[in-house]
């Protein structure tokens, strides 16, 4: 480990603005996250990889939670579609989170390479809004079921 401990010391070498077509094709061949810039501190690369893995596990957990609700829970009395109403959004959210986690990993790695600030993550907002919506749906299903 040398004295350079931050990507900010690498300097922004990534070319801003539109990329020429030839460079884009080469970047696809050489890996989607290795476009321009310099190799960042290994620790940042590791941290980015762990973040991706954490989102992957989150997605997997959401999918299996949705599956469990629809398949293993007994039906809500009087609300036959209640389990699907709660479980299906969870499954869809899980699949979206897994793919979005990869997209964010690519964006973060590019930012690290070019020494730019890491872009703002949109995943927490998606996760929060969807889970809050599922909570409201769950409450409505439970109330409808209790009213019967």
């Amino acid at each position, binding site marked *: 480990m040398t004295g350079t401990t931050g990507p900010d010391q690498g300097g922004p070498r990534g070319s801003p603005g539109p990329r020429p077509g030839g460079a884009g094709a080469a970047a696809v061949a050489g890996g989607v996250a290795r476009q321009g810039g310099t190799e960042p501190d290994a620790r940042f690369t590791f941290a980015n990889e762990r973040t991706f893995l954490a989102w992957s596990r989150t997605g997997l957990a959401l999918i299996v939670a949705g*599956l*469990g609700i629809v398949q293993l829970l007994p039906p809500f009395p009087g609300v036959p579609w209640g389990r699907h109403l709660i*479980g299906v959004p969870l499954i869809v959210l899980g699949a979206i989170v*897994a793919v979005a986690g990869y997209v964010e990993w690519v964006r973060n790695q590019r930012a690290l390479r070019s020494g730019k600030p890491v872009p703002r993550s949109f995943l927490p907002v998606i996760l929060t809004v969807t889970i809050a919506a599922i909570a409201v749906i769950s409450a409505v299903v439970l109330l409808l079921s209790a009213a019967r």
Partner: protein
Amino acid sequence: MPLSDDPEDRDPGLAEERTRLAWVRTAISFAAVGIAVLKVDVPLGVTVVAMVPFIWLAGRRVAWHAPHGENQPRLLLLIALGIAAIGVVVLVLTLTRGNSPGFHPPHG
């Protein structure tokens, strides 16, 4: 290089170890999810469990200093798409299975 107070500067291997452990956690998650899915759909459960050795091996690459992470974006893309595919299959299962009676533990 002046001796830093940050233990990460003295032992950068800690970041590597954390990453290795994150891969192991991910492999264990796949195993747990696969076994849970076996209860609902055997082929899908077997598929998910079959993915475990690949995730685990991907984590070993970190320890071996073999190409990983940034140098192997396709592996991460495959994992993301694999989870999305599991989600799509699970979605189709839940929408086509009709109304499941739910899981009733045996009375003992």
